[in-house]
């Protein structure tokens, strides 16, 4: 199926893609068909800088289990570090 469901987020950071490092200003997160991963559906993340054009993109296609592990690891590390603001 095509879920189409997509979360759009504003971002502030950097990522390294096909053209080297870029400032990341936006993200799309969705569970849908991957372009490359060998699975019917993956949790996909596009880290984008729309001002730099469509190739300014860092892309991830993760098996759901991997995506959960990544998300949990991110939250755990942010919670554990007193230097990281809560929100």
């Amino acid at each position, binding site marked *: 199926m*095509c*879920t*189409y469901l997509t979360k759009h987020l504003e971002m502030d950071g950097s990522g390294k893609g096909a053209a080297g490092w870029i400032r990341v200003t936006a993200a799309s997160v969705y569970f849908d068909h991957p372009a490359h991963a060998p699975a019917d559906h993956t949790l996909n993340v596009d880290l984008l800088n729309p001002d730099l054009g469509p190739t300014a993109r860092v*892309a991830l296609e993760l098996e759901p289990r991997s995506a959960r592990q990544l998300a949990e690891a991110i939250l755990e590390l942010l919670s554990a570090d007193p230097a990281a603001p809560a929100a």
Partner: protein
Amino acid sequence: MDEAIRAEVVEVTGHGGDRIQAYFAAPLESGSRPGMVVIHHMPGLDRQTKETVRRFAAQGYFAISPNLYWREAPGADPDDAAAAARARGGVPDERLVGDVAGAADFLRGRPSASGKVGVIGYCSGGRQAVLAACHLPLQAAVDCYGAFVVGEPPEGFPIAIRNLKDQLPDLVCPLLGLFGEEDQHPSPAETKELDALLSSHGKEHEFTTYPGAGHAFFAVDRPSYRPEAAVDGWGRIFAFLGRTLEG
């Protein structure tokens, strides 16, 4: 027919007079030819979509797939273009109709075109094939597991589409539908509802739902590929087009 073809990138005039790129293939052998517009799926005008265009050409059709993401991402790789289009909310229905119209006009403009043109789409393109056939002078439409022809898109849906129930009375041509029994979008209940709706409107259609197949069973590069369903489906497609476009 020797199946020799020429394939190339062309420009067509799409919605709003915009010039957009398209992938076009044509048989080398001379003769009167019907046309097929291939609507690409959400991942864009990718290698498999181009392969499908070439397949139709090898079968004797002028075939074309307009790049529906050209405006958002001219010249970008299909996956980058798809991501850019998704980030902007997808392809509006009105624009899709205009782009398919431009692609169909390009096919009718080939010197030996028969004038008959069909449309086929996969996944999101399946719904768009039905949409196009409700608004354009086409002679055949093929919907391969298109979601939300009937049924309601979920709440918070980021892409501004709705189902096509109110447009089905305007369907201008026969519709072939090929679906997987294990698919949820569209589900067997939804394709049954579509079947009944088309019958109630007196619209010619032919549906097949394959057991053991889910969404995207034609996709040879995906784990969802189901060879038995895909081989039978291709047979049904060319039999259907033989009746509707070549008669």
